[in-house]
């Protein structure tokens, strides 16, 4: 815009303002308040007498608040006057300013405004209710106004006196209206404006600029909607006197007073109380106080010596129920404690007694008991007293025990048979329970058994002996095992039903623990001998498996052994072992052994092969594997090696013998060294001392070996014990213990040339005793022709000096040249240089020799073999 135009506009506006702009502009609305969303029309007209405006104005435009309205909503007048009409199709603003503007030099100039309001007509108030407050002496009604109208809305409480006959159809005279304050949905009519005992027609009316609505009408007696003040609840004081009414144990004596403003109102009250530690309330309804100002009530059935919280509320009521009202608020809480009564309880009792070691006339008694409430309400028990029975004459026997525990230990003379047990509290003692120490003379149970329903309980069942009277009760004790006799303290239970065959133990049962459960039947006048059983409520798998060890190994077998671990608490015994082994080709094998097995032989293995072996220990719950053991089978077994060594040894001996014989046969001198020719002094002379070879001089190698054997001081016989057949898959402990040792050594000590210290030395002297099994003997049986000294009954020569006698020297005479010497004697002539000094043996048969004659007399058999 050019500055000249602004100056012109300013001049015109100044002129018009001086004249009064409102006189030039006329804005009309179809309605100043409309329904939200409804259309609204407006017109803006510039008076014709404001010619200066019309001269400069080119167009009228409209604005709603700050927003310029579309031009197609308006149309300019065509009658020559400068004006514009506009229609807003729907007004969505609850409050807006509609501005009429004159377009001057392209800028809209506001020349007039109109205020627009939109909203809703009021809805009928809901939840309309009234309460008569006797303290404030006013009738207060409240309601819910419904949705917001966005418009100023007034709520008026209206009421009329009405006749009671036609349910407020006919109105008599109006009661002063009550207009609620802004934002408050309640209004009160003072009592002075109300007839309390006449029916009134009362309602609330909502009004705004778009309409009005009424709530449902109430036709009420104002007193029928009275809300009383809560009563004053308190404990009734105990009256002193012969008919004093201290509250009974478990009862509370209550009284209440009506509130001052409602003393004239007949009321019905209800009481609620709270158990200690609970949030819920227990309601005691229909406490009628009648027309009196106060009421009393004995509240019973409560726990003894327990603190209760109590509240009370009341409502206007008549005996016929014709009068109505609202419940008062609950009174302030009253806390009272019930009286205690002496315990009424049945005591289940169990005992153990033991004669004292140091003083056999006294017994140690351990008494256990459990209070079994006879009613739903359990009495408080402060302690227990145990008195001897019968009491002393003065009835002032000191108690054996005064305890708060559920057990007691004391001493009694051995002849005492019973005691008296009572429970007590501040109100007194319970009826006494006589405990008689019965002897174990009744029949015991046939059997007991257990099962575990869950991890924290055990079911123990029993069977009665046939033909025996049923017990009157059973006592079940349980404790952690191992427990010695009498150590099972604490956990016990009495099953009072004699015909029952089991009971559930659910106290102090934890899993993985072994329990010893003892059941004792109780008869009338006696009790049966207890029986026990061990049980778990839940078991664990074993935590570790025994370690495998290799005991023996062969070409195709391996013997393994293991030592089972000590039993662990909470784990059931091992039920079986399983041995797994795999070869290098990952082929797996297994064998199952029973729990008593301690070793195992794996058969069918391949020679010189490697195997991985492990052991799995299992119980009823699970299993666990041991560490792996790697074994390698061998190429040759010990037996094979022994046979091979024996064969090599025999071959070596035979080879040695053959070499020796050949050597002796070639060397005669050596022959004479070993077998000298002994001349017969009786039939020889020096001239006849021609060494001859007698047929009896045939000497076997065995005799040669005897003579050449050095004196034996110790004989060690290595003998392998008989090998039994290998154990089968299932072996017992005894069998495993009889498994052979590797080697057993038997040592025989002593000089075979010394006389036996045994008195029966006159018998044949034993040089040695071979202790061995038959198998060994079969394998080493000597040749049938071999003579053994141990088998001979022939007395031995006393003097066996190796030194030859002088007459034996003939043996050392040289044989005459050309004489035939048997080749098997092995004494070659030309090989001995000493033969020139040795005499020849006399000619003639051997029996001619005197000593040999004597030998033949004694035993011809022995000579025959020489």
């Amino acid at each position, binding site marked *: 815009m050019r500055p000249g135009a602004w100056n012109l506009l300013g001049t015109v506006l100044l002129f018009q303002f001086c004249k009064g702009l409102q006189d030039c502009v006329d804005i009309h609305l179809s309605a100043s308040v409309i329904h939200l969303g409804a259309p609204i029309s407006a017109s803006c007209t510039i008076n014709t007498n404001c010619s200066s405006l019309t001269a400069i104005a080119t167009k009228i435009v409209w604005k709603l608040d700050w927003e310029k309205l579309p031009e197609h909503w308006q149309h300019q007048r065509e009658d020559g006057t400068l004006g514009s009409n506009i229609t807003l199709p729907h007004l969505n603003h609850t409050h807006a300013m509609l501005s009429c503007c004159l377009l001057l030099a392209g800028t809209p100039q506001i020349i007039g405004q109109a205020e627009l309001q939109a909203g809703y007509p009021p809805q009928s108030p809901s939840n309309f209710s009234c309460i008569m407050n006797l303290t404030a002496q006013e009738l207060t009604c409240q309601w819910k106004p419904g949705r917001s109208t966005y418009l100023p809305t007034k709520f008026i409480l209206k009421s009329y006196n009405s006749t009671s006959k036609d349910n407020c159809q006919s109105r008599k005279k109006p009661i002063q209206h009550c207009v609620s304050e802004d934002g408050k949905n309640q209004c009160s009519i003072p009592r002075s404006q109300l007839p309390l*005992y006449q029916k009134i027609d009362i309602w609330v009316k909502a009004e705004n600029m778009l309409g009005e609505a009424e709530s449902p009408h109430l036709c009420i007696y104002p007193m029928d909607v009275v809300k009383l003040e809560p009563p004053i609840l308190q404990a009734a004081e105990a009256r002193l006197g012969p008919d004093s009414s201290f509250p009974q144990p478990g009862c509370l004596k209550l009284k209440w007073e009506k509130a001052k403003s409602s003393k004239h109102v007949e009321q019905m009250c209800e009481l609620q109380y709270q158990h200690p530690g609970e949030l819920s309330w227990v309601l005691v309804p229909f406490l009628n106080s009648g*027309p009196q100002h106060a009421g009393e009530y004995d509240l019973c059935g409560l726990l003894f010596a327990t603190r209760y919280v109590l509240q009370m509320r009341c409502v206007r009521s*008549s005996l*016929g129920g014709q009068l109505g009202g609202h419940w008062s608020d609950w009174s302030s809480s009253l806390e009272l404690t019930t009286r205690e009564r002496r315990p009424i309880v049945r005591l289940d009792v169990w005992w153990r007694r033991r004669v004292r070691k140091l003083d056999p006339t006294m017994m140690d008694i351990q008494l256990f008991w459990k209070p079994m409430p006879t009613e739903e309400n359990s009495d408080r028990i402060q302690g227990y007293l145990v008195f001897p029975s019968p009491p002393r004459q003065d009835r002032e026997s000191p108690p054996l025990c005064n305890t708060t525990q559920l057990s007691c230990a004391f001493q009694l003379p051995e002849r005492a048979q019973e005691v008296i047990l009572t429970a007590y509290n501040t109100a007194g003692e319970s009826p006494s329970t006589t405990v008689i120490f019965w002897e174990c003379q009744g029949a015991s149970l046939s059997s007991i058994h257990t099962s575990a329903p869950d991890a924290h309980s055990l079911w123990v069942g029993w069977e009665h002996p046939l033909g025996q009277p049923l017990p009157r009760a059973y006592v079940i004790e349980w404790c952690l095992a191992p427990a010695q006799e009498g150590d099972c303290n604490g956990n016990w239970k009495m099953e009072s039903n004699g015909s029952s065959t089991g009971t559930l133990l659910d106290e102090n049962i934890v899993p993985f623990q072994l329990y010893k459960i003892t059941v004792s039947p109780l008869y009338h006048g006696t009790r049966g001998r207890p029986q026990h059983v061990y049980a778990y409520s839940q078991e664990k798998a074993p935590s570790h498996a025994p370690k495998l060890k290799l005991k023996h190994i062969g070409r195709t077998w391996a013997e393994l052994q293991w030592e089972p671990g000590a039993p662990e608490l909470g784990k059931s015994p091992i039920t079986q072992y399983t041995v797994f082994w795999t070869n290098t080709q990952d082929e797996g094998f297994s064998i199952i052994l029973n729990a008593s097995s301690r070793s195992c032989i794996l058969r069918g293995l391949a020679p010189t092969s490697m195997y991985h072996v492990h052991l799995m220990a299992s119980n009823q719950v699970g299993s666990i594997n041991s560490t792996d053991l790697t074994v390698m089978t061998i190429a040759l077994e010990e037996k094979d090696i022994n046979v091979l060594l024996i064969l090599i040894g025999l071959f070596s001996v035979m080879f040695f013998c053959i070499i020796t014989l050949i050597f002796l046969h070639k060397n005669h001198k050596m022959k004479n060294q070993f077998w000298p020719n002994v001349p017969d002094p009786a039939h020889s002379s020096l001239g006849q001392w021609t060494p001859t070879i007698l047929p009896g001089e045939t000497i076997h190698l065995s005799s040669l070996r005897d003579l050449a054997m050095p004196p034996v001081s110790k004989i060690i016989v290595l003998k392998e014990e008989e090998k039994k057949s290998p154990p089968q898959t299932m072996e017992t402990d005894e069998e495993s213990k009889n498994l052979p040792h590797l080697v057993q050594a038997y040592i025989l000590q002593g000089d075979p040339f010394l006389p036996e210290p045994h008195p029966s030395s006159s018998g044949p002297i034993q040089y040695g005793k071979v202790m061995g099994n038959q198998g060994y003997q079969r394998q080493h049986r000597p040749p049938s022709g071999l003579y053994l000294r141990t088998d001979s009954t022939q007395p031995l020569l006393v003097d066996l000096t190796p030194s030859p006698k002088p007459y034996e020297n003939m043996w050392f005479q040289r044989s005459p040249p050309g004489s035939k010497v048997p080749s098997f004697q092995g004494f070659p002539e030309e090989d001995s240089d000493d033969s020139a000094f040795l005499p020849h043996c006399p000619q003639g048969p051997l029996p001619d020799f005197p000593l040999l004659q004597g030998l033949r007399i004694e035993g011809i058999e022995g000579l025959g073999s020489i």
Partner: protein
Amino acid sequence: MKLPNLLLFWLSALWPQLLAIPLSSSNYLPQSFLPQIQEQVRKIQNDIEELQQRLCADYSLCHPEELILVGQYLGIPKPLLKNCYSQDLSLVACLNQLHYGLQFYQGLVKALEGISPELAPTLNILQLDVGDFAANIWQQMEDLQVAPEIMPTQGTLPTFSSSFQRRAGAVLIFDYMQGFLDMAYRDLRHLSQS
């Protein structure tokens, strides 16, 4: 027996008689009428007792028999209930007398305004309670269509020229009110027993 109890007993005794009178089918007393009346009587009795206690405590006016001369001077009348005590009990006449008496006592209580700021709230409540009682009786008469066309006027009320006269008049009026209900109770009880 305390006065409220006597009155209740009277009303209980009266009730069968009220039901026994021959009324048209439209003449029906609601069941809530009797307990309402009992309650209203108890309320009036409570108000009166409270006022009597205050007058006794604050002004040493504890015994109405000490104010006989003042009562004669003031000329406070005593409404009667003779129609409620006769062999030919007329319910309408009884209700009329009962209403008139209550209306009269309402006027007397109103005349006591200004007796004491401490007594004013309770006195105001007593006036409302007596007025409610009278209105309730009148309402029942209207419902029974036995109400007079014109409500009877209260009659001449005494004037109290001094505070003492007003306090003394209050003690007497309260005593008369108690007697009014006691007398009605005794008469009607006698009637119910005969």
